[in-house]
């Protein structure tokens, strides 16, 4: 009797080393392949390759700032962000072809000292909706193409705590990319077919994002000590282009 904990370890290994076990399975003769254990109501904790409907994943994204103004805004050539995504696989539109919708939230923040020797903090929060089409080359490997749109805000703070300038601007963006999805076999953790199997799902995606230029007008942040402060004019630090290639990696659980 294999314990759940033991199976979990196997699944984890499958997620990080997906090529080895499945490639071995694909190398098997067709008759042998049918011997892969299928989940049933009578056999709990078994693995299966049933299609997954949902996936909840944590993701990280690296973006490469190609424009000088964007590099100054972020203080770096490449920036990182992290977030969450929830995807839904529609029933297969064709054999081995799946359309998927996903909702995502991605946050990034960079603190640096800019060219003026000023502390500078840049952050974004983007909420996105994506549509992807994937083709199952193998049960565990599916290349896909994805388009997505999103909106949110970018915030910039510059200066010291007593004299900091701040602004937040609305941003929207669209992206197009392609990548690979890998999944592990699903495992039934409950003795009922009503409960879907759980599987690890990972994605690696590269693409390009185009968005509106970010126009930030910084304004002295008042601590509120003055009852009726003298109005302070904002300063426009210039529009920053929002165009960058990205690499997105996610890892999560499908069910």
């Amino acid at each position: 009797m294999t314990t759940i904990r033991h199976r979990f370890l196997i699944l984890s290994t499958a997620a990080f080393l997906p090529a080895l076990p499945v490639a071995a399975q694909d190398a098997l003769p067709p008759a042998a392949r049918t011997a892969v254990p299928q989940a049933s109501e009578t056999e709990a904790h078994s693995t299966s390759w049933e299609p997954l409907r949902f996936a909840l994943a944590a993701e990280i994204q690296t973006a490469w700032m190609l424009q000088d103004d964007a590099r100054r805004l972020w203080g770096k050539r490449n920036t990182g962000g992290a977030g969450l995504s929830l995807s839904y696989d529609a029933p297969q539109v064709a054999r081995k072809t799946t359309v998927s919708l996903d909702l995502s939230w991605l946050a990034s923040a960079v603190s640096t000292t800019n060219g003026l020797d000023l502390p500078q903090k840049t952050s974004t929060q983007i909420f996105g909706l994506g549509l992807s089409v994937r083709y199952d080359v193998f049960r565990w490997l599916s290349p896909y193409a994805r388009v997505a749109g999103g909106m949110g805000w970018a915030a910039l703070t510059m200066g010291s705590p007593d004299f900091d300038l701040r602004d937040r601007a609305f941003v929207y963006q669209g992206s197009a990319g392609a990548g690979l999805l890998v999944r592990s076999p699903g495992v039934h953790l409950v003795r009922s077919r009503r409960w879907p199997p759980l599987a690890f799902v990972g994605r690696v995606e590269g693409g390009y994002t185009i968005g509106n230029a970010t126009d930030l007008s910084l304004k002295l942040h008042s601590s509120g000590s003055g009852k009726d402060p003298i109005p302070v004019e904002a300063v426009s630090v210039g529009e920053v282009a929002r165009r960058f290639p990205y690499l997105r990696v996610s890892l999560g659980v499908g069910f």
Partner: protein
Amino acid sequence: MKRAYLLPLLLVSPLACHDDSASSPSRTVLPMVALDNSVAYVDSTSGTAFLLDPANLAPRPRMVATGKSPIVAQKRKAANQLLVLTHGDQGSSSTESEPARLVIVDPASNAAPVSTDLPGRFDRLAQSDDGVFAILYYGSVSSGASGSMLYNPNDLAVATLDGSKPVASRPIRSLGSVPSSVTFSPRAMLFGQLRTLAAVLAPNYVTLLDLDRADRTEITVPLVADGTQNVTPVQVLFDMAGANIYVRADGSNDIFQISLAQAAPANSKSNDFRVSLSLIGAGSEPSDMEMYGTGDAMRLAVTTPGTRQLAILDPKTGNATSISTATQVSQILLFQGKSPKSSEIQDRAMLVGVGTGATALVFADLKDIESTQGLALESWSIPSPVVGITPLPGNIALLNQRDVYGSVTLSVVNLEDRTIEPIGSSGALDYVTVEATAQSRLWGTNGSSRIEYLDIVNRGQGPLYSGEVILDQTITSISPLAKPSTDGKRYLVLEMYDPMSLGYLTVLYADQPDRKEARSAYGFLLSDYFKRGQP
């Protein structure tokens, strides 16, 4: 096993970011320049001038590229223009060199600034009072001054700011010293021609340039004959009508008289005048000198604090009349006006011991003082020593005094009535500026966010009318603008405490300052920072 490491590496990659900003240089911003109705800042690092109209503190001030490494920014005299002297860039294997430039920016025009390449990387700029001529020179013999390894520190250039003539390189003779300052004559007729002379002062030497004739050689006048004495010329007076130049020098008890005499030029590069030097003894080292009278009655009044005397020098004869002042006076404030005893308008002077610790003012009736001597002087005691004096229109002077506690106090002196009105202050004034125009108004702050003002002349609200405005941040400088801005209002521009040098101004109406009408701009030196690139 290598594949096993691929994913973790991808996960870590966002954290392995390269920081571009680490090698960026710090920023240098030249002091604010108050123009007629606007203000300008020049960012040395980015080579950008920021022009701000107080009537419209827009999110993007007008930005003008000045060229690399601006080192001097001044208002052009008698004109509403900004002058910027840049050092340029010597270049390197990866960057192109850029010549030093003199840039003239007109804040009222959107046209590109007028930029003139200079023959050297000068670091000093002196202007004639009429704003027509500028002399660019080196203020040091160190290589850091020019950015060059080897250069002639006695090279200088004459620029005509109205653009009527090209910049002329005018190297002067190197006699072991470098220029310390440049003084311009008033523009006047001399030997039948309208001209402006410049006196380039250097230890032991004065060099004269006829600025209207760039092709003429300079005239170098050694002040000491044998080189055993060191004198440093510090003050020059031009008597263009009498064709004389008077030089006062530290380290000498004499006034140097340089007489100009018309002479036919020997060749095309010679001047049409010659010079001769004579000395007029003042008895002791002079601290100040002023010219008064005309023609044969022209005299020099000279203070000699060492002997507590006022010396009256007759340049025609070389005679000196010394009159004891009883107190150590060091500065002369010349005026024409009445006195309490005489309604006759004549040359008079107030003698002040600036920095001497004297607690008395001496008024002198200069007409016939050589005969009346001590009778022409009148002393008035004051409570504390004078550290500065500001002449104002209407024969009024503002005395800057420092009491025994080191605090600055102020007094208004009516030179004709010889009355001294102390100005009360609840605290020590750290920064005072006076509008030396017909609308004399004194502005002061005590290093806080409070600005106080006082009308030295009656502006319709009574004599010595005062008021105050409290702002949101510590005031660091006060600049009343001379002329109304684009909205027809004249502004007072206050620099506020700005530890990061991003630009922090508050503007008030200069004629009716009121906090309710105050507006501030902070961070305007960051304008278009992301677009401009280098800060």
